[in-house]
């Protein structure tokens, strides 16, 4: 109180200072360690228990990331940022709506499914017998004698799976009687073949292994539960997928705040380097992802055109082409997924409407393979060099192991996203270490 203006407080001794620093260091270590463990535990918990959310979140972010150049372009043309965001969100929602609506129209009704089952069973057996050279006396060609004993049980299990029980058959006939669009003659032939279908492995008539409705009545309560759980699971799926447009919107609205927030956590020594890494990675990944999306669209369009040319139904060809185009993201193996899906459909097709007269149901499988070979040639010669520019080089072993690990962790979606994820991680690591060296942070 009475101290002079220039008087100083008695400074603590050297021992006290050291003790204070030591305590502070210990306290800091404890707080940072505990919060670090808690933070990483939380991230791990979220990744494991909110696994169903990962895909919608990733897809929402990906869509927003791909739309960023469009947003900048609209802004440059004088459209305010908020209007650009609303425009893109609207476009995204309309795209989602029409995609879902189109997918729903392709899902057949209950009776249509029964019709498809008999027709698919008939076509697939016809095609099998043709390729294997199985005639009435059941003597096959060389291929059949070589691999027939392996394929026969597979065909039998496919037939058992497709076979209708008596009630399903009755229901199909009742429905077909009231449907003028159904070709009764063709359906009757299918049903007749269906009823006379004989197993390949044993000379006896095929019988359905599905229980009749009478047996199912015993489990009526269970069915009710299933009905309820179906509604609940549909609502669950909807609520999970609502995350996608929300993520899309938030990521579009973000005007660099996420990046700023991230950079503010980086220590001063790494400040310039981390922003350089972020920018380089952003540029490389942006180019790769945008290139991949354009390549997928071009490949899908090419495959669709070629499939229609060889006689595939244009509506179904859209789905097959999209699957093939998306699978093409996986180097080397993706092509085989596309071919396999198209061949399966070619095997169950009822008729070919090709403008090329030499394409028939019997050589359609061969033409499906040729279509994919042509599409791959165009992709490698034209699309990849122009769209992707510098090829992302991954060793085939990395591709193979990555694809397997991805599919084991997240199924088909994991298989699909494994390679882009590996490319992104590779790009981040290589840029990170290059810049660390450039900034003299490591040798």
């Amino acid at each position, binding site marked *: 109180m009475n101290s002079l203006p220039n008087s100083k407080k008695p400074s603590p001794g050297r021992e006290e200072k050291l003790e204070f620093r030591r305590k502070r260091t210990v306290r800091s270590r404890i707080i940072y360690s505990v919060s670090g463990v808690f933070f990483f535990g939380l991230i791990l918990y979220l990744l494991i228990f909110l696994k169903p959310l990962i895909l919608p979140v990733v897809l929402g972010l990906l869509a927003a990331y791909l739309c960023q150049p469009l947003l900048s372009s609209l802004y*440059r043309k004088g459209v305010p940022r908020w209007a650009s965001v609303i425009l893109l969100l609207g476009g995204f929602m309309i795209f989602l709506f029409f995609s879902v609506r189109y997918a729903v129209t392709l899902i057949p009704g209950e009776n249509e499914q029964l019709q498809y089952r008999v027709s698919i069973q008939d076509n697939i057996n016809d095609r099998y017998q043709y390729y294997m050279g199985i005639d009435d006396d059941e003597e096959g060609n060389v291929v059949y004698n070589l691999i027939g004993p392996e394929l026969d049980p597979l065909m039998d299990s496919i037939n058992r799976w497709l076979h209708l029980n008596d009630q399903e058959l009755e229901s199909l006939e009742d429905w077909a009687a009231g449907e003028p669009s159904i070709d009764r003659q063709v359906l009757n032939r299918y049903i007749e073949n269906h009823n006379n279908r004989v197993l390949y492995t044993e000379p006896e008539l095929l019988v359905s292994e599905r229980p009749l409705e009478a047996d199912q009545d015993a489990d009526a309560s269970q069915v009710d539960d299933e009905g309820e759980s179906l509604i609940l699971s549909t609502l669950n799926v909807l609520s999970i997928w609502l995350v996608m447009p929300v993520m899309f919107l938030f990521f579009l609205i973000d005007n660099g705040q996420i990046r700023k927030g991230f950079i503010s*956590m980086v220590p*001063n020594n790494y400040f*310039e380097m981390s*922003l*350089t890494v972020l920018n380089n990675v952003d540029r490389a990944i942006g180019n790769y992802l945008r290139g991949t999306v354009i390549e997928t669209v071009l490949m899908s369009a090419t495959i669709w055109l070629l499939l229609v040319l060889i006689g595939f139904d244009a509506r179904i060809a859209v789905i097959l082409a999209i699957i093939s185009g998306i699978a093409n993201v996986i180097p080397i193996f993706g092509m085989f997924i596309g071919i396999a899906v198209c061949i399966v459909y070619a095997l169950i097709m009822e008729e070919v409407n090709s403008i090329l007269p030499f394409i028939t149901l019997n050589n359609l499988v061969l033409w499906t393979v040729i279509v994919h070979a042509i599409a791959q040639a165009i992709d490698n010669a034209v699309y990849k060099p122009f769209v992707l520019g510098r090829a992302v080089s991954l060793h085939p072993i990395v591709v193979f192991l990555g694809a397997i690990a991805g599919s084991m962790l997240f199924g088909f979606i994991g298989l699909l996203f494994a390679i882009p994820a590996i490319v992104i991680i590779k790009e981040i690591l290589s840029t990170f270490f290059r810049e660390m060296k450039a900034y*003299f942070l490591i040798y």
Partner: protein
Amino acid sequence: MRKIIHPLWSNIFKSLFREKEGGDTELLGSIPIFKNLSRRELNIVSSILFERHYEAGESIFLMHQPGAAMFIIKTGEVEIQLEHDDDENLVLAKLEPGDFFGEIALLENSPRSATAYASTNTDLLAIFRTDLDKLIEKEPFIAAKIMKQLAIVVGVRLKETNKLFDQKLDVDEFIAQ
């Protein structure tokens, strides 16, 4: 490892509890590079600024490191030093609030020609070349004004360097005679 983890976590806590900063636009307006910008334009520029705090003695960048950002001093002091082989650094300049350095990094990706240290506790604003490049695409009018002023500043500094060089030559000639 501890050196890396400790500052990382302490920075997370700093950023969480840091008080809301303000007044960056006024500081920006006083800097020659941004002096022709309106208040709205300064606000847009301030949205791409990063604020950093450096303790006394902490290096901001080292000589020969790649340059990616220009720094503006908000508070504190910065020393620009030229590193010598004999461990004694030559102090080229002492900079104060409102001064800026590392402006060449906004134009090209060349290595830093000197080292910058915070001589007291210092708050800096950093602007990155890549963000300026994006600004050129998004806001060409603002970016054009900045680039013009940047060219003037670089030109003035080149003239000053030439003048110093001439003076040095004159002195050397005088000594030789």
